[in-house]
């Protein structure tokens, strides 16, 4: 397991630290680097920085390292760390905040595939109001140029009626679209997420 020294002085961008604290609503200063979160994290094996290290990066204001880490995308939002942290540090809220900031600053290189998934998922909701799984799967295949994996599985699910050919129908789909528009507007106005 990799460590970050426990006594790193504030060397980075303290505005960044404050912004993350405020937006995530979690008091990361209480973290004493006990590693409970990292030991319990089910996807630690796929991360570059471990969860306690991400907390440390934010504490000391290492903005670039935090925002460009693979970790913020790999985090599965399982809430195990938040449940077990002795200091009530809500790491999943910190991850949410960092992901939103990375998207805003367009530094998502290490999470490209996951970002494609999220965007496709949300575009479908914007269009249909509910998830349209068949379209979601096909679009992800197109966008990631992964045409052949799980093909037989997909066909089987179609046959079994678990993937519907027809899109979902919502009367007030306009109401859902209006929500997305208002969010777009405030993002364009530079409001923080």
């Amino acid at each position, binding site marked *: 397991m990799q460590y970050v020294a426990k006594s790193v002085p504030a060397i980075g961008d303290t505005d960044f630290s404050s912004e993350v604290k405020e937006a995530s609503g979690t008091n990361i200063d209480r973290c004493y680097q006990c590693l409970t979160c990292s030991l319990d994290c089910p996807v630690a094996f796929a991360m570059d920085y471990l969860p306690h290290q991400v907390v440390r990066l934010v504490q000391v204001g290492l903005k670039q390292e935090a925002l460009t880490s693979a970790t913020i995308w790999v985090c599965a939002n399982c*809430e195990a760390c938040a449940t077990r942290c002795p200091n009530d540090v809500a790491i999943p809220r910190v991850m949410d905040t960092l992901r939103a900031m990375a998207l805003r600053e367009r530094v998502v290189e290490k999470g490209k595939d996951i970002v494609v998934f999220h965007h496709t998922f949300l575009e479908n909701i914007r269009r249909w109001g509910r998830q349209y799984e068949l379209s979601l799967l096909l679009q992800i295949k197109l966008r990631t140029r992964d045409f052949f994996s799980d093909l037989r599985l997909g066909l089987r*699910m179609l046959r079994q009626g678990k993937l519907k050919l027809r899109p979902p129908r919502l009367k007030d789909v306009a109401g859902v679209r209006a929500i997305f528009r208002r969010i777009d507007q405030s993002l364009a106005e530079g409001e923080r997420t």
Partner: protein
Amino acid sequence: MKYAYYPGCSLETTAEEYGRSVRAVCAHLGIELWELPDWSCCGASSGHSTNRRLAQALAGRNLALAERVGLDIAVACPACYLRLRSTRKEVKDNSQNREELVRLIDMPYEAKYDTRHLLDIICNDVGLEELKKRVVRPLEALQLVSYYGCYLVRPPEVVGFDDPENPQSMDRLLAALGAEVRDWSGKVSCCGGSLALSRKEVAGRLVAEISEMARQAGAQAMVTACPLCHSNLEIRQADGKQNKLPVFYFTELIGLAMGLDGAESWLKKHLISPFSLLASHDL
């Protein structure tokens, strides 16, 4: 017992058998599910992973729809359950958040009504004694492990009708149906469902670990209350070389034990067929 029922996207498609068994079981147990008209997607993990206010608004639209009719919401999907409950909590005691939500959805919302998971409703409102009385085909000698996953129990300050580390509700429910429930340490392990489409290898590794733990505990099948866990456990086990453990929805087993019509048609939709296991137990 009347609820505004929020099925969520999966229960109409990839988890259709869950959706159908939920309706059949609730009708049988006297839980009236009145489907929330024109409900929309809760935003799932893609919502809160990219924009907090979008996530609140997508969930909030449904909360506001239910508030119009003055009913608590019943849900079957733990991911929807967490999204709806988090949103209510985030705006309930914070008028600034609430005003922003109301502006985004353009509907009034006062955070008056609760959202409950059906496992909670069935275990705690209907009650296990009542369930036992209705069992006509006990699931005798069927060796099961309950798999709760993440969002039924975590984070406990938002969800939490059960213990976050060692939940018991599904274990007790299955025991009430006559099954032999095994204790194991995989109950609240994450299956990586939110990465199922974007990082298959990560999800695959987690599913392999969970199913191996279940086998070591002597289980013949796993039981879940989550459509995303169910798909993920079925699909990613199918990739592996080990013999595969069938995965049941808890409502399917209630239906089976109560002899409800349609149980067979639900189970036919599974990717890992449970029929030979059931036949070996005369079920």
